[in-house]
């Protein structure tokens, strides 16, 4: 279309890429978000004398590591055009199941297995309702959000499970090396795993194809229901992993555990540049978004800003970062 017609001649050569890697990076959402992260880091270090301290920064990572673990799986799910709003309730149910097991004298390996299995089972329940019965995932998971946490409330009421074994505390409180916590190492490891899964495998490519046009993807021979089933399983499993870390860190289980986290996880994913309509987004974006959210909450915490103001700030940040590119485009016109 760019050149004049030349039917019937030797086939013209089509370039692989329109732009080089440098130009693509410069236009990327991730770079903009990275600049925001650096700005917040610098602002924080001026705002509070306690910010630039290795142990304080290490503590700050706990603000996002558990949520980010779920956010990686959630990113894939949202890119595929689905969503899971029951993740925080899955944490509650996993934690309740683990706490109950402790009351029957389960050891750390059993507790971990029960946490993961409960997460997988919850994910499978969502997956069956969405992929086998064809129900919209937003409705299904709003339902299971109430259902899963409701079970926790029935089991625990006003009470709490305590008495976790001493070695179970390692997942949420242990340090691998100096200030590097076990949770942070797990977060980094999962970031790499999900990066590879989404950006380097056939499975990841299918996720993008489904999110852009599920009908055409199916007409291209992709087993759409199977891919979505796996994505719900993964999200459930990651909720189980987060439940283990969080329960270990808190040392107890209450039915209100991780209350409201589903929105923070979705915020992290969207802030990371994943389209809420599906089809686009990246893991590096979600990783940077996790740091941004962690830095903001931590910096405001150091300044003794109350939690409710913090959530206002996170909300403004989300709207601001998303509106920025559009405002920029409008201004240039």
């Amino acid at each position, binding site marked *: *279309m760019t050149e004049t017609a030349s039917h019937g001649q030797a086939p013209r050569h089509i370039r692989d890429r329109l732009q080089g890697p440098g130009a693509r990076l410069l236009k990327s959402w991730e770079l903009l978000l990275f600049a925001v992260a650096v700005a917040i880091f610098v602002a924080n270090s001026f705002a509070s004398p306690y910010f630039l301290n290795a142990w304080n920064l290490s503590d700050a990572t706990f603000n996002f590591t558990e949520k980010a673990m779920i956010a990686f799986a959630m990113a894939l799910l949202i890119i595929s055009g689905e969503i899971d709003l029951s993740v925080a309730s899955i944490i509650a149910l996993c934690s309740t199941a683990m706490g109950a097991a402790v009351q029957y004298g389960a050891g750390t390996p059993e507790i971990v297995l029960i946490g993961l299995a409960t997460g997988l089972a919850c994910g499978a329940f969502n997956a069956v309702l969405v992929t086998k019965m064809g129900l919209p995932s937003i409705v299904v998971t709003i339902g299971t959000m109430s259902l899963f946490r409701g079970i926790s409330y029935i089991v625990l009421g006003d009470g709490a499970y305590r008495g976790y074994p001493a070695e179970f505390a390692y997942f949420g409180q242990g340090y691998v090396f100096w200030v590097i916590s076990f949770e942070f190492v797990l977060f980094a490891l999962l970031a790499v795993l999900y990066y590879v899964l989404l950006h380097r495998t056939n499975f990841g490519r299918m996720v993008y194809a489904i999110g852009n046009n599920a009908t055409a993807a199916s007409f*291209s021979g992709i087993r759409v229901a199977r891919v979505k089933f796996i994505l719900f399983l993964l999200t459930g499993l990651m909720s189980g992993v987060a439940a283990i870390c969080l329960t270990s860190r808190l040392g107890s289980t209450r039915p209100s555990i991780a209350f409201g986290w589903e929105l923070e996880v979705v915020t992290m994913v969207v802030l990371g540049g994943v389209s809420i309509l599906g089809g686009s987004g990246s893991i590096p974006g979600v990783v940077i978004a996790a740091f941004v959210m962690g830095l903001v909450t931590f910096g405001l915490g150091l300044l003794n800003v109350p939690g409710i103001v913090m959530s206002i700030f996170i909300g403004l940040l989300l709207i601001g970062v998303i509106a920025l590119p559009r405002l920029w485009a409008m201004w240039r016109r």
Partner: protein
Amino acid sequence: MQVSLTTPPVAASSSGATADAAPVLRLEGITKTFPGVKALDGVTLELYPGQVTALVGENGAGKSTIVKTLTGIYQPDAGTISLAGAPVHFATAQDATAAGITAIHQETVLFDELSVAENIFIGHAPRGRFGLIDWPKMRKDAQEILSRIDADLDPDMPLRELGIASKHLVAIARALSVDARVVIMDEPTAALSHKEIEELYELVERLRAEGRAILFISHKFDEIFRIADRYTVFRDGQHVGSGLIADVDEAELVRLMVGRSVDQIFPQRAHNVGDEVLKVVGYAHPTEFDDINFTLRRGEILGFYGLVGAGRSEVMQALFGVTKPSKGAVRIDGQVRVIRSPAEAVENGIVYVPEDRGRQGAVIGLPIFQNVTLPSLAQTSRRGFLRLSEEFALAREYTERLDLRAAALDQDVGNLSGGNQQKVVIAKWLATKPKVIILDEPTKGIDIGSKAAVHGFMAELAAQGLSVIMVSSEIPEVLGMSDRVIVMREGLIAAELDGEDLTPENLVRHAAGIGAQP
């Protein structure tokens, strides 16, 4: 935006084409660039009052872009638009409507849940006191406009209860309600039956008599020569010619469109048919089709002809595993196969190029190369891990064979024209090395140049031993390409024709169910 129902906007002094009239709308030097593509390159377009100007060009020539520029959806990078001699600038679609430019699109943009009158007056309903909608006046005005175009429609009827042709009438009534000086019709006959097309022609005549300038976009030459006064031809985003229809013939228009003369429409092919590849036995579906039996041989092109709704696409989608047949079996290379999903069809070597390109064919949003390799990922990857260099190589091999027009392989397939998107879909399937390729209306809405390319390619594939099923409603295409033709009517096979029986008369007779010949 007052509605003047009694006096036409421009005196309809002459309805014929004259060279000396002044254009009501003039676009000059319009350039519009998208990433990697110059969609319009300094084009000129003039529309005259009381005349129909046909805009002709291949897919990707820039026709849609100029319509969007005219209606304020796109802003040109360079060039001027002048309306009745005064320069204008359309920042939004509302600006263009206010200036009296209205478009009737291929798929009309109307609101199913609103009434006919509301659809006609949406955005400019007559207001009464306190700025509230004056319902009685709106109903009365709607009735007047409808009767002016001889449309026997109740203004209070919800739009969803109307057929496609009636919806077109509502769209036209809407165009008249804004007192449009310029009416753009973008392939208005694509979805209409023969009778409805005739009625549309009458309407165009009426609009012309009222002195409105009409831009008529069509791929059908017979209708261009029937109703247009003038023509303008675009090729690859450039203006390559314009003038009076009376001074031009079909061959000259084709030459301008493609930049060469199309001497031979259908490729000559040797009928070299081999062993049986596919056998369908007793295929049935509760509502769509029944008792479907046919065989397909190696290197054969099997045509499926019938009226729209005869069940041809439904049979093909069942073969491809999209819908489930209630009865029947499929044998591939003599072995019974069960196909429950498109994925299983692809594994068995059956691939399907759907009629609905945008929704079922190309994955808009993914780059070209990822569209091509989507069903071939097992081949380009290693142990489930992507290998981009292999993907680019595979995509390049097949897209270049199909003479794809694109700036780069990582370009979004949605930025391509319809014909080029079709090439990407075909390339995607050829890369899987299928046994049977099903093409559902492969050249519908495609320009002549791309059509010839698709036909040539089909012949080449058959010669290489691929079996082709071609669902088509175009008689010349069915006759020109097929070795054998199955005619379907109301979900049943009405006839199987080959050799001397393969005549236009027989096709039409069996498709329409007209009694047997003596």
